[in-house]
């Protein structure tokens, strides 16, 4: 039985995807598209062959999707995994079509059931995990967390030299303005539960008491303009990794929570006991922020 797995890597987050195929027990091949250092990191995990491709200057990784797909298809692995990274996914899509694989997104686990592959995928925004079975090749987009892999004897790196398709980077500009959110230890963030612009001072007081940076949900910055746009958190805003994220009057929409996936502890204050944010927060206070914030400030100063 073909038990070979290939893993596509084009950005920093790759350890979870690699760790997911290791228990399958077959030969593992990693394809790294990016700088040499990335290939070296993957190699140090010692989990099998590493093929490395360095994109030419001004050429994005996606330009190599067609030629890389042909290499993957020629090896015909049973399992092909990519991360969510856009470039990785483009390579996965090209290779999956050539392999005639079943392409499953949001995958968190893989296992054998006889000759079948069992694929566990998160559905309905992660509220349930569905197990799917197939007797054919599988292309999976990994959606689990990163893990720490033990260091092992490095595998050799084989360099690939491929011609790119006609895709070019015309311009690359930095966008973020320094807000201090990026490396903040603590962040206090507020949403539409705050009723008036003048009340922002109350939340700011809590941020000061906790020695935290101040952030907000998208509508606060975009629709109401109560805080700079550079300070909202979420899919299209900041992606932050504080030790503490305290969300005040924020409903917890999935687009918002995407921005704090890397937070260590999430605490929420919301008057609605059924607020979505309580499904993902580690701690919560069910209560009116106008009463809870003064109480919190008083408690911290005790």
């Amino acid at each position, binding site marked *: 039985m073909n038990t070979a797995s290939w893993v596509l890597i084009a950005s920093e987050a790759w350890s979870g995807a690699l760790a997911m195929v290791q228990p399958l027990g077959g030969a593992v091949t990693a394809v790294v598209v990016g700088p040499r250092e990335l290939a070296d990191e993957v190699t140090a995990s010692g989990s099998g062959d590493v093929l490395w491709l360095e994109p030419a200057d001004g050429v994005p990784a996606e330009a190599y999707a067609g030629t890389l797909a042909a290499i993957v298809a020629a090896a015909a692995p049973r399992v092909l995994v990519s991360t969510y990274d856009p470039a990785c996914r483009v390579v996965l899509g090209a290779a999956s079509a*050539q392999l005639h694989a079943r*392409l499953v997104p949001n995958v968190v686990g893989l296992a054998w059931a006889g000759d079948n592959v069992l694929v566990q995928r998160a559905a309905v925004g992660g509220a349930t995990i569905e197990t799917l079975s197939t007797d054919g090749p599988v292309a999976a987009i990994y959606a689990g967390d990163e893990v720490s892999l033990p260091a092992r004897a490095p595998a050799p790196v084989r360099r690939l030299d491929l011609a790119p398709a006609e895709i070019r980077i015309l311009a690359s500009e930095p966008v973020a303005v320094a807000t201090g959110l990026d490396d903040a230890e603590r962040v206090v963030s507020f949403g539409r539960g705050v009723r008036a612009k003048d009340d922002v001072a109350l939340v700011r007081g809590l941020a000061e008491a906790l020695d935290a940076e101040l952030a907000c949900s998208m509508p606060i910055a975009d629709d109401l303009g109560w805080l700079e746009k550079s300070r909202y958190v979420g899919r299209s805003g900041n992606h932050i990794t504080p030790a503490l994220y305290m969300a005040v009057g924020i409903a917890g929409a999935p687009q918002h929570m995407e921005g704090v996936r890397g937070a260590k502890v999430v605490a929420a204050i919301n008057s609605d006991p059924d607020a979505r944010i309580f499904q993902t927060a*580690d701690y919560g206070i069910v209560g009116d922020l106008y009463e809870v914030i003064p109480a919190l400030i008083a408690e911290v100063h005790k």
Partner: protein
Amino acid sequence: MKAVVVYKWARNAADAIVRTDGSIDWRNARMAAGEDDPAALAAAKQIAADTDGTVIGLTIGDGDASWALARGVEQAVCVADAPNLADNGATAAVLAAAVRYIGDVDVVVIGDSKQEPGVAVALAGELGWPALVGLHSASMPAGQLQAVRRTVGEQQTLSLSTPAVLGMSAESDADQVPGMKELLAARKRPLTKVTLSDLGTPPVDLVSVGCRKPDSTPSRLFQGEPAQAAAQLVAALRAEGVL
């Protein structure tokens, strides 16, 4: 340029309820377009405007195909009997067959959705076309297809040759809800219904063997008097070492 905009009209996963055994109750889920579809439509329209070209809508499934027609798209194609598939590759194969059926297409613009992040890339793979996904806008100034994407801290402008697939990611809820006039106009616009047998692509899918709730630690909720709840939360956060 002949641009195809792929959109979806299906039950909104955000409204689905997961039962305690992990199974999904879709009964209260409203029909909705994909969250990223308005961004895809905006990009397709921009490309058509820049090139004096046309936009054709494409959707699959038995839903209402008028979403794009009511938003200014002149004609649409619907693969009415395509089922909802777990395999993003199979969904993409149906879409690719429909793109070939439409014929002479220069660019396909599609929502690069968080829930189904394999559809756009597998569609490019099925067509054998270059692709970029996670894009925020697209245009075609001076005959060259261009796309913009923002990652944390960086904005990139890229160019690519046609034919190509562009996967668009919405940055906010940018849907323009059409008025009565547009809805009436949509009814008069041509909608071509095709079937899987017309396209010759019977989809194969994976077999579902069950659902379970993810193992997550429930959040610790403090209720009651604000002062007491605040004291409990501060104590818990200090114990975690984050205060």
